[in-house]
């Protein structure tokens, strides 16, 4: 049995878990380098949104409490970038399942969490690129951050944390749905419903009370309001629910809760995910 000596693998542990994750992130980054059109596709839509909302709409829409519409709307566009991560992760994970690659990874002696952790981490790079693209587009139409470095950076951290939560949601969706067309449909629906049923493009003052409550607690509303406040684009509302008055306080709690639920659930589903 001399053949087995080659296959004897160092005992698993935190160190090997990290090196496995790094190796798999390397795989995804190679993918990104070889299919730049993926990053472009993810970046282009929100950049176009900045142009449309910040430039075309800005001439006719004004929101109380903000000098310019693009000041109001940028937080919402960033949140939309995060929302679109659902589709990115779902398509990636489902493709790996369909081709049997996940089966191969699962037959290797590595930690169960490694595959999804590296998938979502690498996809976060894609969203970071999109965030940079949107920032540049925002600056071009006249959007500015009026606060110091720390609150400004915290705003971007919130956006990326939201993106990270959505990537885990996407991973879960990808494992459950498998079919690329179905995934595209569902993630487009998520994008439309969550971004429009929120305060990201308009204040919610005109909505009936029950719908308004739903929209106010929508993570998109909370995160975009928090960013507006952190960047000095618009102050938090003085009246209304907790979500509206204290978005900066609430956003980290809400995002931590989302990641705290979505991560373990996805990993649990991964454990039993099989090629069908």
């Amino acid at each position, binding site marked *: *049995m*001399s*053949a*087995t000596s*080659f*296959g*004897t*693998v*160092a005992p*698993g542990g935190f160190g*090997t878990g990290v*090196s*496995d994750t790094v*190796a*798999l992130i*390397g*795989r995804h980054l*190679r*993918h990104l380098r*070889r*299919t730049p059109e993926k990053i472009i596709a993810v970046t282009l839509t929100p950049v176009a949104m900045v142009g449309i909302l910040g430039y075309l709409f800005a001439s006719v829409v004004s929101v109380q409490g903000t000098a310019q519409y693009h000041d109001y709307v940028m937080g919402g566009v960033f949140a939309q970038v995060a929302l679109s991560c659902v589709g990115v992760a779902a398509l990636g994970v489902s493709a790996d399942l*369909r*081709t*049997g*690659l996940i*089966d*191969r*990874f*699962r*037959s*290797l*002696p*590595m930690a169960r969490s490694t595959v999804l952790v590296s998938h979502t981490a690498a996809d976060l790079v894609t969203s970071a690129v999109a965030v940079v693209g949107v920032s540049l587009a925002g600056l071009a139409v006249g959007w500015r951050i009026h606060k110091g470095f720390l609150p400004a950076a915290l705003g971007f951290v919130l956006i990326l944390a939201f993106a990270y939560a959505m990537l885990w949601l996407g991973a879960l969706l990808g494992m459950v749905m498998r079919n690329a067309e179905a995934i595209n449909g569902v993630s487009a629906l998520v994008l439309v419903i969550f971004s429009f049923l929120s305060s990201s493009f308009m204040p919610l003052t005109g909505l009936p009370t029950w719908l308004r409550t739903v929209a106010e607690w929508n993570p998109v509303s909370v995160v975009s309001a928090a960013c507006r406040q952190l960047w000095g684009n618009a102050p938090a509302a003085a009246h209304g629910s907790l979500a509206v008055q204290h978005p900066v306080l609430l956003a980290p709690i809400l995002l931590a809760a989302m990641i705290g639920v979505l991560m373990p659930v996805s990993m649990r589903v991964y454990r039993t995910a*099989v*090629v069908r």
Partner: protein
Amino acid sequence: MDIAIQASGLGKRYGDHQALAGVDLEVAAGTVLGLLGPNGAGKTTTVRMLATLLEPDSGRATVAGFDIVRQQREVRRRIGLAGQYAAVDGLLTGRENLELLGTLLHLGRKGARSRASELLARFELEGAAEKPVQTYSGGMRRRLDLASALIAAPSVLFLDEPTTGLDPASRQVLWQMVREQVGQGVTVLLTTQYLEEADFLADRILVIDKGQVLAEGTPDELKRKVGEEWLEVGLADADGLEAALAALAKVAVASPTVDRASRRISVQLADGMGAITAAAAALEGTGVEVVDFALRRPSLDDVFFHLTGRETDQGQDASDASDASATTHDKRAKENQ
């Protein structure tokens, strides 16, 4: 002899579909077991269980001496798996695919690199090593897939329909590569729908259907279950049938059977060349025109049909030939009762 894979009473249920209903199997180290069965027989389920991808509802199994449920990590260190879908990353090059798996198996950067080069050379993929796998042909993908399964030099190799969809030449190449592994002491569990493949590669064969084991043995043992070899004579026209039948009846050990539509006579002879010579002489004496005179032995197709009452998918593809052989099956089956 060492036992590399041992399973007893493996069962799995999906809703009200019993995918596996108590499968027992045993594979000696360094041998090949062919798992033969139609689609949905439970072949893939069995492999997935033994490769620790799926937990059984009932029963237990050990692979390379470790329990597939309680010692998954130990099992995973010692197995290689090549599934039905060539599980390779299309965007990476062949070399990158292998190096990634080497890294994940902790061979070290250097170790992963040299192992990748070694396997690329052995699987004749050096020329395409730096090209993205999505540009590979089906045969090349399968070869890379098999190479991927061998990164850690596993002692047990699972191959789930390794040549499905390959052209005959690529299939031959892959078979040789599997044989090479067996020559080096690797234990192989192979599922296939191709009887030819099982015949060529497997030391022992397990025929399963509807999640149950129908028969087990060496290819020869299984063929013997169906019957001994027989002489098959084809005539140019139907007029000569009676004369030929009468002539052959004299040299046969059992009464010949005849298929009038295809003008063929099947007859069981005594052992030895003498019987064949006598049959030839007897036919010659009648003066009928003989277009086919051949000894036939049961193929695994016959075994499969005999056990499951179904043609293999492969058999269904060949139209005329399979019709003719189906009538032979019927006759053989009757004879054996």
